[in-house]
């Protein structure tokens, strides 16, 4: 292949990639732009991409109206707390599944995943009653527990597939050197598996951040995360697109920034055992 030819294909691919990704990104860009419009402009019959009076009034109003930072903090605590707690439980389980396999391992794994197929609406009332009786309604602890349990199967599975790529000789070698299991996990397994663990963490943080069923039903004022913040801007009587757009951007941007900084990590770690 000549240099010139590859140069041309690079231009074509670049053009193609930018066009497609812009189209995919467009709804978010549109939300961002709308968040700087007035409500009247947001529903205007001839919408304009840039030619309008840019305003910050939506952001000002949203900040004045809701305790954004409370919700923000709750989101952080719940998503990060549940992900870390989940890792603590999932890593040992994934280790034992990956390195001490039995006939039942696969079934166990599938069973764990199938617990996620229970439709949440179907078990709403039982869970609500349990939360009431244990005094967990509207507490961050309660939500951390729920989010941990919801994401645990995915975590175990992701980690399991990642651990399986690690040749067991490495671990055996360390055992020869007299390391016990804890040392083996801590000093040998974790450093090797760090990309996988990091992307597991990232993925579950994202999933917990966006979970909008349990976080809405089980909270009131104290533990409500950003999903509840959003729910106070959607569909009131009256115009709301611009304010909803502003609120949406405020809810999305933190996680978008996190995603931006960690995308390489994510791409490296989300292998699902495909890198054999």
């Amino acid at each position, binding site marked *: 292949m000549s240099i010139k030819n590859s140069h041309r294909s690079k231009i074509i691919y670049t053009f193609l990639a930018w066009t497609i990704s812009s189209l995919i990104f467009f709804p978010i860009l549109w939300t961002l732009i709308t968040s700087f419009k007035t*409500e009247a402009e947001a529903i205007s*019959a001839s919408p304009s991409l840039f030619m309008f009076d840019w305003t910050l009034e939506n952001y000002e109003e949203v900040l004045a109206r809701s305790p954004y930072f409370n919700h923000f903090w709750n989101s952080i605590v719940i998503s990060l707390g549940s992900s870390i707690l989940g890792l603590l439980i999932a890593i040992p389980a994934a280790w034992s599944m990956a390195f001490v396999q039995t006939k039942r391992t696969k079934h166990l794994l599938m069973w764990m995943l199938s617990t996620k197929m229970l439709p949440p609406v179907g078990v709403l009332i039982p869970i609500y*009653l349990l939360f009431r009786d244990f005094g967990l309604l509207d507490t961050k602890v309660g939500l951390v527990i729920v989010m941990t349990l919801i994401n645990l199967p995915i975590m175990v599975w992701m980690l399991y597939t990642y651990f399986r790529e690690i040749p067991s000789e490495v671990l055996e070698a360390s055992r020869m050197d007299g390391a016990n299991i804890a040392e083996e996990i801590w000093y040998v397994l974790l450093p090797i598996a760090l990309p996988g663990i990091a992307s597991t963490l990232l993925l579950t943080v994202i999933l917990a951040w966006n979970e909008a069923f349990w976080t809405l039903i089980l909270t009131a004022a104290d533990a409500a995360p950003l999903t509840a913040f959003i729910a106070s801007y959607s569909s009131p009587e009256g115009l*709301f697109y611009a304010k909803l757009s502003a609120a949406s951007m405020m809810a999305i941007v933190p996680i978008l920034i996190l995603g931006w900084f960690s995308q390489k990590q994510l791409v490296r770690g989300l292998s699902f055992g495909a890198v054999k």
Partner: protein
Amino acid sequence: MKNKLMMLACGVMTMSAAAAAKETITIATVNNGDMITMKELSNDFTRQNPDIALKWVTLEENILRQRVTTDVATGGGQYDVMTIGTYEVPIWGKQGWLTELDNLGASYDVDDLLPAIRSGLTVDEKLFAAPFYGESSMVMYRTDLIAKAGLEMPKKPSWGFIRQAAKAMTDKEAGVYGICLRGKAGWGENMALITAMSNSFGARWFDENWQPQFDTQEWHDTLQYYVDVMAESGPPGASANGFNENLALFQTGKCGMWIDATVAGAFVTNEKDSAVADKVGFALAPDKGLGKRGNWLWAWTLAIPASSEKSAAAQKFISWATSKDYSALVAKNKGWAKVPPGTRASLYNNPEYMKAAPFAQITIDSIQSADPVNPTVKPVPYVGVQFVAIPEFQGIGTAVGQQFAAALTGTMTVKEALKASQRLVDRTMRKAGYPK
């Protein structure tokens, strides 16, 4: 004697409350504009009651309803004041889930509350909720378009005239549709409109023995009219349109007429958001000459769940938020047009308000003409104008709404939709064990 005792009790209660640390009450409310204003102005309340602190949970209507219903039915006790509608109050009051509002204060003037609204909030002579704002429905129309069509909107239009006017105003080429009506499936969406409409056609949900009535000619006429008028003069995508979608259409000048909640009057005449603010007229909801008009009756109210342990403080708050003084407070801060409408007769005797709100007279006339106990021409076993105040209604209302939406898009014929509705309502009612 009894009064003295009560005063004593009150005194002790206030004393103990003052002695104790600050009491925090949690208020769950809808994210509508009037409630946002209430939240904004609430430091007036905390100034008057330094021993009470407020915590707010503001949510979109559907989510709020799910949450407070779950909470009140399971005795979760997460909220001290709940914003609920006239649909919930009679059901919950009967269940004993609400605390009676018997201590609203001497200056509250309960008799000033509009009787149509108050009767819907009273169970066994006890008031279980205080109305925050009330609404009915009316016709909003474009004065310029109707003049262009060479017609004149009567104060009390008939359904026949509406259809004729809608046709005359429609100019699909120019993107102007004669009539915008709710089409999105839901008991509080398209069914609010269609049920209210059906009353004026003489239809009813159930007969005196709780037999569903969708197989009657009256329902057929109602739905046929709705489908026809929307096919002739409605906007595309009507089956996904609720209040907000239609509001956006009307404000951008796409609709000739819009029949919806009276609170919309304030939005469409608001010059900041509405491109047609100076070209809007109002008329009463249409009728068919059977003695009932097609307007509904709704109020958002504040109530205290029985599970709340802070009902004294909660009652103080409710009294503040639904009082005459609150109206004056809003008028002072936001202007008379922004005062929560439709709850007190005194507001409609206030010349300043009547001047500031061009839709005020229609609102009060509509509210007063609605009768939740005798909503339609024939007698019914239920309470409610555009709903049936039984627990099963949210479910069957939404399911029937889906059938009607299908008739609107043409996926089903009117006959099929009514037949399916009759069947599914009949099933649910049998399962629930009606007649009770």
